């Protein structure tokens, strides 16, 4: 599903944000991407959803090389990917329902179908009663659940989350993680970037660790916790 071969990303005048990273994620996996702040986690996710292009190396998504993807092709790649951010990235002047509808609108689905799907999505994140509210009137945990519903709206094969629980307290973190785990249980491949070690301890999953742009370990979270106390 995701294959990186010797991927390097450099920003001018800085040490490489990613250096010679080779990594494979197969369909249906649930992967934590971890490492201290500045390790290159966000950069790796940006390469995957084509917000940035690698300086060198190859990046295959769904079997297709996107290292040199043309701007016109990016939307078609992104339609297979849902993304969740630490700061939610909801549109404040649109209702919760309209925010969740956005990925369906850009795919030009019929309005009736959009309405039906949005209701189901909001129900699945427990926010159907908030459909007409605006994001600023919701708590952080609720906003992040909206963002997850939006990311999953078009049934993407791949879900990327960049510090999705970074702004949430322990209980809200648990709620959001349950939603991501449920999506994975339904077959969506999930990659979560986090520096929150407690998450890795609670969920026994594959953990890929980065440090100063280099891949330093790759294994399940139990061994990870043991190797790096």
């Amino acid at each position, binding site marked *: 599903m995701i294959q990186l071969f010797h991927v390097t990303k450099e920003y001018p005048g800085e040490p490489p944000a990613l250096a010679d990273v080779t990594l494979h994620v197969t369909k249906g996996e649930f992967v934590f991407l971890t490492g201290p702040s500045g390790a290159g986690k966000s950069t790796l996710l940006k390469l995957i959803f084509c917000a940035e292009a690698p300086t060198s190396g190859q990046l295959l998504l769904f079997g297709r090389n996107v290292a040199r993807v043309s701007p016109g092709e*990016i939307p078609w790649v992104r339609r297979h990917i849902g993304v969740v951010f630490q700061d939610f*990235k909801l549109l404040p002047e649109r209702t919760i329902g309209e925010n969740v509808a956005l990925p369906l609108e850009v*795919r030009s689905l019929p309005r009736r179908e959009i309405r039906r799907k949005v209701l189901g999505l909001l129900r699945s994140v427990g926010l159907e009663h908030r459909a007409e509210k605006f994001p600023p009137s919701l708590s952080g945990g609720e906003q992040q659940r909206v963002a997850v519903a939006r990311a999953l709206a078009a049934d993407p094969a791949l879900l990327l989350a960049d510090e999705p629980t970074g702004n949430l307290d322990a209980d809200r973190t648990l709620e959001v993680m349950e939603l991501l785990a449920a999506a994975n249980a339904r077959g969506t491949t999930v990659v979560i970037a986090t520096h929150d070690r407690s998450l890795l301890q609670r969920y026994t999953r594959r953990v890929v660790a980065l440090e100063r742009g280099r891949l330093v370990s790759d294994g399940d979270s139990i061994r990870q916790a043991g190797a790096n106390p």
Partner: protein
Amino acid sequence: MMRRPVEAIRRAYTALVRSPYVAITGTGTIFVAVLSIGLVAAGLGTAERLLGAWAGEVRLSVYLARGADLPTVGAAVAALAPGRAVEEVPAAEGLRRLAQSLGDEASLLDGVGADALPDCVEVAVPGIALGEAKALSRRLRAVPGVAEVDYGTAWLERLERFLDRARAAGLGLLLVLGLATAVLVSNTLRLAVYARREEIEIMKLVGATDAFVGAPFLVEGVLQGALAGGLAAATLLGLQAALLPRLAAAFGPFAALAPGAMLPWPLLLGVVGGGAAIGLLASALAIFRFLRR
């Protein structure tokens, strides 16, 4: 790419309603721009029509040799100038008209007899081109019994040169105004694009194509432009209604213009269509520069 134009129009409408101030700024900019262009175009057009009406009074005067028969020469002239109004003016009538045109000074003509003037045939040649006037007068001069043909060459020549130059200058002016307008309006519409950069960023994040992101901006540009053009056309009509009677009272030539002559309908349509076109081009420029940066 844009499979649902109706959807784009709906999104454009939503955006206009959501941020009316941005829309008003855009519409206002286009309004000022097309109004100035419309004023210049109407002014140039009116000037040309005034000169044309003036030139329409141009006549060739065919003076008869002494003793020549007026009806005979008149018939010969009419045969050489088909479709033109030909009038036989006997010397006595010529003298009467001269006296009339002199008005208070008519006493100057006291004691002047009708035999002081030759008989004359007048040919009305409205809107005649200089070359045509020359050729016609040459043919008329060859008519037996004709002493002289007067067609005010110098005046016609000057008018034609002036009209040519005015037309070129007018077109150049409209072109410069149009270009300046496109840049100005596109900068204003860039603000509208910039105000929605977060929305654009998120739409692209969830897989929107540039066509999908851009379509509502183009629709908004056309709507704002057409609205601005309509307002400018209405303003021009209002100005005409207020100004034309005053101009007609102050300057004789304006009285000769038809009531709506300053703003013929192609000009009004051009103002509305031009507004829409400027809106479309400017918004296309604005969104294209934003998406491709």
